[in-house]
């Protein structure tokens, strides 16, 4: 039986005003399927054992493998869909981090904590999590929670999460530890839900992609593929492009 401490804490929090949208990151190899279906279909998740669509609030976290080490998979050029904020209303499950990394975080948490202890009510908006731990959307984007903060002994789960996002645990994790994850259990039809499509310039040469983007009323935002060839650029490219979109929207 999961502890509802974290859920209750977030439920009682005041959501920040504003919006960042939700992101879904995929890659060029999946583009043709996206063009054909124009929807995001749940795929079986080995963490939860059920078909799910993964989105992240604002930050374009990418559910790549947590293998780490010296060997890294070569990336296909990434594509990021920025979705309307109210897609979060369809949430099946919301977690305050990339659940794929929980196996790693848990080593730094108390033994008794499980993934379910960090679930919030799917009817609560991710902006409540941001409001609970950050002063602004900018701070969430930059991963700068309010510091310092103290929590009573009875709020040990909340404190553990706070330590996770402030680097206060024995082990440090990358940005995915603070990227709010929104899971959908149902197929998401993308018509009318996409604000922007970020991808290599050349994908927008394709008449089918152009038609899809136009039908959605989304903004095409292309980048140059050779920029992705430099390893230092790979992780930051989509982040920079999403950040720029949020700036242009004056949401950041």
């Amino acid at each position, binding site marked *: 039986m999961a502890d509802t401490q974290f859920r209750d804490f977030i439920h009682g929090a005041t959501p920040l005003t*504003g919006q960042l949208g939700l992101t879904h990151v995929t890659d060029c190899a999946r583009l043709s399927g996206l063009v054909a279906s124009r929807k995001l279909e749940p795929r079986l998740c080995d963490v939860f054992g059920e078909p799910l669509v993964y989105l992240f609030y604002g930050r374009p976290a990418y559910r790549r493998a947590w293998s780490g080490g010296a060997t*890294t998979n070569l990336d*296909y050029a990434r594509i990021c869909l920025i979705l309307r904020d109210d897609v979060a209303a369809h949430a099946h499950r919301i977690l305050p981090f990339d659940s794929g990394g929980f196996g790693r975080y848990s080593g730094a948490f108390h033994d008794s904590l499980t993934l379910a202890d960090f679930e919030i009510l799917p009817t609560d908006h991710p902006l409540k999590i941001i409001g609970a731990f950050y*002063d602004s959307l*900018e701070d969430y984007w930059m991963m700068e929670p309010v510091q310092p903060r103290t929590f009573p002994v009875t709020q040990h789960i909340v404190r553990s999460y706070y330590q996770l996002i402030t680097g206060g645990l024995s082990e440090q994790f990358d940005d995915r530890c603070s990227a709010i994850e929104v899971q959908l259990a149902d197929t998401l039809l993308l018509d009318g839900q996409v604000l922007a499509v970020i991808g290599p310039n050349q994908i*927008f040469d394709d008449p089918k992609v152009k038609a899809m983007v136009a039908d959605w009323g989304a*903004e095409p935002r*292309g980048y*140059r*593929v050779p920029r992705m060839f430099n390893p230092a650029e790979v992780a930051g490219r989509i982040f920079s492009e999403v950040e720029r979109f949020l700036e242009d929207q004056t949401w950041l």
Partner: protein
Amino acid sequence: MAVARAPSQARAVAVFNPTAPAPGFLQPLLAGIGGDNRSFVQVLAAPARLIGFAEVAWPDRDFVSLNEEPVLQIGGEPLWGFLFPDEPPLVALWSTFRERMRTRVDDPKLADKPLQLFDIVDTLDFDEFKPAVYVRAYRAYAEMGPTAANRWRDRSILEPALARMLPALGLPPHRTTVIDGPAGETSSTTPRLRARLADGELLVFLEGAIGEAEQRGFQDAYDQLVARYPDLFPDGVRVMATHPPRRAGPPQIKAEGTTVVLVGRIREGQVSYDEWTSQGFEVVDESRFHPALRIRRVPKLTILLGAQPDWPQLVEAGMRMGEHAAVIVSLSTSAAPLLRDLEFQAQTNLPTVTFFAPYATSTVRGRDPVTPIRPLLEIVQREMDGGPFFDVHRLFKAQHNMLVREPLWSNQTSIEPACRLAARALKAGAVFGGVARLYSQGAVSRADHQDFVAALSHLFQIDESEPVHIEARRAALLLLVERIAQNEPSHYADSQRQGIMRLFELRGWRIGQDHGRAFDLEDDQRRFGVVIVDHARDVPAEDPEAAAPGLTRAPLLVIHVQARREQLLIGNRGQFFHAAIEDIALIEPGTLWVWKVLSRQLFEPAARPSQGALRLCASLIVEAVRQGRIQRSLSDIDWNHIQDLLTSSDCERFIRFVDRRTPRRTATLVIQIADKSGSDNQQIAVDLTIEDDGPVVQGTDFTELPFD
């Protein structure tokens, strides 16, 4: 991807298509040499420069093996590849690849791919194709929406073009959305450049100093883009470079103004918050400001204000300001540079301003601690009026500065107040030849202001940009000038000596022989020595056998850098003439300047009756009697007897001040004398006035009053 322990060379064995299945640029895959079975990709510092190899996992698919397997070396040319439809991959070293691709720009296979062409032409920097290809790419985006096209143009073409011209303007590198910082970082602390072109205006957002030269540079850069790409960039656009807007967050307390943060003991004062707010200044206590700084928008300028004894707190508060524009303002009641100030100011990177004014503390309730720096706030406000942003380094060109204020009187020439202002600045530690800016307050004409600038330029490097005038009831000059930064007494003393000599020259004197701290001074009538002294112990000894030569005939002028009034007054009864550094303003060649100096020393507004003043007044009465400068008296007064009494070594036994209202430059003294029969005492009240040509006395019988 780890670069650590990567080899210095590797063999290219395949290419990977990151946009598969569509054609496009290919990423070379490399294998280790000599038994190293790892896989790598190239790390590039520039398209033509290979700086390393990063280990990767071999991809499962979408790779093509190479027939030829060139060995690549760090520092050499990297390998590039491109896949055209229905062809084997085109793979070659950078320079060869570039030339072969140049011949394919017009290839029919790319005819309906304007955005792929943009990638090719932009990445490979084919200048000759850019105008046509850029326009085609822009139109391709425009088909999906004008906003999308304009935003793409701004970040893909405009911003990189502007970023490339920053070095020519002496500005630091900035990263745009599509160009990394200098170390290839995308989310580093490297400042960002953003450009937005809309409604006939181009806003360029960047960090750092933005002056007129930069504004012109950006305008020129845009005009060049218009000339090159007339179909992309409209003509007649006004370019404005400014600092980036703050991002979203809680509403700030004050968006565009100046915040004064009270630090240390002055927090005990009583601030008229509403009044300051109405004038555009936000005043906050330090304890509330710093916690709020991280969640609020930052003011254009933060002034950390504290009393001189609270330098440690000021430095600490400054450290917490991060990159925000801030200045430390220290209120000092000491007109001299204090060793402690110099030590603490060396610990901050922020600009500092010392302002000489009393500060409100807990013991002085009811005073507003911000009021003393009103002149500085007015300067800041006026300097901010000039543009959309405020560059703190443009106002404070030196790191350590002082602000000195000098009231102006209607009957003065420009030289006298300029000399006095410069003298006070030198005394307080201004750097001779240091950078400075002059401001005028109240009824000062532009021509007069220029005269003051010309005069002060003899001593300081005065900024000659457009003068800033401040409305005020009283006319005054304000000099913001560089202050000494280090505790090096010898260097400072030499700077001060040169400043003093220049002051004399400004006043119209000729400098004769220079002996270091002593030098000769001459005009058309006389020549005498001058010595500069820092302490009383440095004053040259008088000849105990010689008589005082008289006030106007002293052979040596002693200039006291840190003068105490009593020291000057006592000294002026002796063989040398003693003056403070500020008195140089009154020492005008060809005039009887001694009397003006003595008048100031005796009758300055803050002057109090003292033993030294009493004895000097006695001497001046004697001098007036000797010169016959006696105004008609109502009583029968034996001036010769008074002269005898006042020249005695214990003259203070016979004379005292009378505390009553007197005209300016006049003192009233009572002298006790015996009547001619010797049987009774008589008291004479003497009004001593120092006029420009000497002292004048007038006597009255005052016998009815008790002497004590």
